[in-house]
């Protein structure tokens, strides 16, 4: 029998994690805003010095007002909050598993929580490895918070046992691989979108044309080649994992349904997702496809992944309709 109290603890912890992630997001945003303010203040100060030099009226800015919010402190605090949220999130998933006496990815609610967990983990690893600045956190935590919020309100399922078809050790292997790949893919989708913003921003600024929201966000983003590389690194990690998830799923399907592949809607969409990511990896190495076109492929592939999980489970009748 599922443990009700422990299940509720898991739900409470997930709520806490979402709140902490949201605070972290604000921290990252604060870091960017204050850095931007500081840059403009420095610019003003530089121009006043020019004015002073040319004999104009002297304006001196008190140094204290500039350092009222230390950007690097805000950023470090936000990163620490992300780590804390990650720990709370991990305990929420663990509590779920113990409450239901099984792996904590048995329905859509739990799956979504795990996917977001993988995305945050991947982001933290990328920052720790020095692939990307932590300020990217504001743009990563926003979709994570929205995603978890949606999952907790729209897909909520109380901890309970699995339907017989899911009762196999393959759920540990197949679904764990699918969760890992999905979390990384969704992160790469966000980064690819940011890359598109940044490279459009670069293009407009180079032509000295004005930028409007959302392209103007490009000013806050890491350089385009950095975003391109991060998106590639994450996809290069996730693609073999996704391939393995599909193969493990095929082996499981062979044991459960008597065929390893049957073009069930879920299988079809996993295939489409796989083909698009294979296309991305080839596109990135092909002249005329590098850069923006390849990034669009990555975004399309992430959309196919979302269709694969949410649209297929909720709207299309197939063998994978459990939740």
């Amino acid at each position: 029998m599922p443990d009700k109290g422990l299940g509720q603890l898991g739900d409470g912890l997930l709520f806490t994690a979402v709140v902490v992630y949201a605070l972290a997001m604000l921290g990252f945003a604060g870091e960017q805003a204050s850095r931007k303010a500081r840059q403009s203040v420095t610019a003003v100060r530089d121009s006043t010095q020019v004015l002073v030099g040319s004999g104009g009226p002297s304006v001196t800015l008190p140094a204290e007002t500039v350092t009222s919010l230390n950007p690097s402190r805000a950023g470090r605090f936000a990163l620490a909050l992300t780590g804390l949220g990650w720990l709370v999130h991990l305990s929420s998933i663990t509590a779920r598993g113990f409450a239901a006496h099984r792996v904590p990815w048995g329905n859509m609610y739990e799956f979504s929580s795990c996917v977001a967990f993988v995305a945050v983990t991947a982001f933290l690893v990328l920052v720790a490895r020095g692939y990307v600045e932590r300020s990217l956190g504001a743009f990563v935590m926003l979709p994570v918070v929205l995603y978890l919020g949606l999952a907790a309100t729209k897909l909520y399922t109380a901890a309970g046992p699995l339907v017989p078809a899911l009762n196999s050790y393959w759920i540990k292997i197949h679904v764990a691989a699918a969760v890992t790949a999905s979390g990384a893919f969704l992160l790469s989708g966000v980064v690819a979108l940011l890359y598109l913003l940044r490279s459009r921003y670069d293009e407009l600024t180079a032509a000295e044309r004005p930028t409007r929201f959302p392209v103007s966000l490009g000013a806050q983003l890491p350089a385009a080649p950095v975003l391109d590389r991060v998106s590639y690194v994450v996809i290069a990690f996730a693609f073999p994992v996704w391939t393995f998830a599909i193969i493990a799923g095929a082996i499981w399907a062979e044991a459960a349904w008597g065929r390893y592949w049957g073009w069930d809607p879920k299988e079809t969409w996993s295939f489409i997702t796989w083909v698009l990511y294979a296309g991305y990896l080839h596109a990135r190495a092909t002249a005329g496809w590098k850069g923006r076109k390849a990034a669009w492929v990555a975004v399309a592939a992430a959309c196919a992944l979302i269709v694969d999980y949410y649209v297929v489970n909720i709207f299309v009748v197939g063998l994978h309709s459990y939740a």
Partner: protein
Amino acid sequence: MTVPDVVQVDEATRLTTQPLAPQLRSGVLGPLRFGWRRLTSMRTALLLLFLLALASVPGGFLPQRRINPLRVQSYLEKHTTVGPLLDRLQMFDVFSSAWFSAIYLLLFISLVGCLLPRTRLHLRALRAAPPAVPKVLTRLPASDTWEGDADVLARAEKALRGWRVVRRGDELSAERGYLRETGNLVFHLSLVLLLVGIAVGAFRGFKGTVLVVEGTGFSNTVASYDDINPGRRFHPSSLVPFTLQLQDFRATYAPDGKALTFDAQVTWGRTQATTPYDVRVNHPLAVGGAKTYLIGHGYAPFVRVRDRTGAVVLDQPVACLPQTPQFLSTCVIKVPDAAPQQLGFRGAFTPTTITQDGRVGSSFPGLVRPVLTLVGWAGDLGLDGGVPQSVYSLDTTALKPFDKGQAHALSEGQTWQLPGGGSLTYVGTREWATFQVTQDPGKRLALLAAVGIVGGLMLSLFVRRRRVWVRVRPGAPSTVEVGGLSRTDPERFQAEFAELVRRLRE
């Protein structure tokens, strides 16, 4: 003398065996060759890849005949204008359609056309020594120069352990990461192998389903199945001989009616069913190349019918087909041997019976209060017309109902005395299970291909291929030139190169 097909570039700095862009050449074979190059070029492959993804989309949204013909039928009934149009475009058979096949066949031709020369080149590269030092090392992405002597070459050989190193006089070439291309080729070759495995299964495979009531069984012959789905080149003699008996079927449910476990206890054997085995979901029975899966279950009330003469004319379980998650099931009982008139019954079986507004229903899938509710007829069942009839439907055109078509509810052990003589007894309840037997001779090949796909992919994504050159230019004083090149992860290579230079300068 043969003219090389591709324009010669500096092979040393071309760290890939990817073919160069095609160029139109004159001659009879020119355009043909150009077309072939076009087809096997990366751009075409990329285009075909995206087309493949696009072509699969309708298969992910529209019902497909292979999977669920009933849903295709109902879709066509609901959409009378768009439906037939989509059907003509093979939208309900996407994965066997002409256009889908055309795309993947072209893609695989393009793949093979690209793979063969690449494999040849890679095999050559595997045996060859790393290429000679380019004339100008400073033009490479990573390079360094300092004053030093020929000792550096010995130090380089030591530092480049694990690399393939060749020394030519005052020059040294080294290369590492050949497994990247090996993995790449293994991955793509495994895709071709997978296609072959799928094709073998589709042509020589077999699938049959059969409904078995507790206490009965079947043998693995084409005739014993209710429904078969053989491959185009399937031969009945390739069926693995075995027989199977269903001894006991058990299902357990949570209090809310959600199924927890299904368990079919069977006995099986090559000639006689003697070996016990539990067939469960996720736990099929494997005999040779044949696998038996549990795919469905239901109830079969045991019914005994006597006709007016008092003779027992039916004494067997009758499989009823479940219609709801709570196992409200429909039953048809035909008694062709009854005299003087044939008898027919139609009704419902409910495992946990509730009655609401005079209608019976079931509130739980488990067997708690089973009731068999039937309407009876007497007359001609219409079985002699030569037209095949389903055992699950009753043709009442030549039949007259008992009691003006009023239904009779029977609990286990109860008997309905038919008007004018004869009786129907609901003796007890048995369960049935449906088994699917599949033989797929291409399965092993597909699995082998899958291993190659994952393994090759990991190698091709995580191994980095790179080259390093060292040259000592004589003079007073002599200078050392070092250069390096990596197509993958240049940032990491820069760090590696810097470390190498540090060790060489020691």
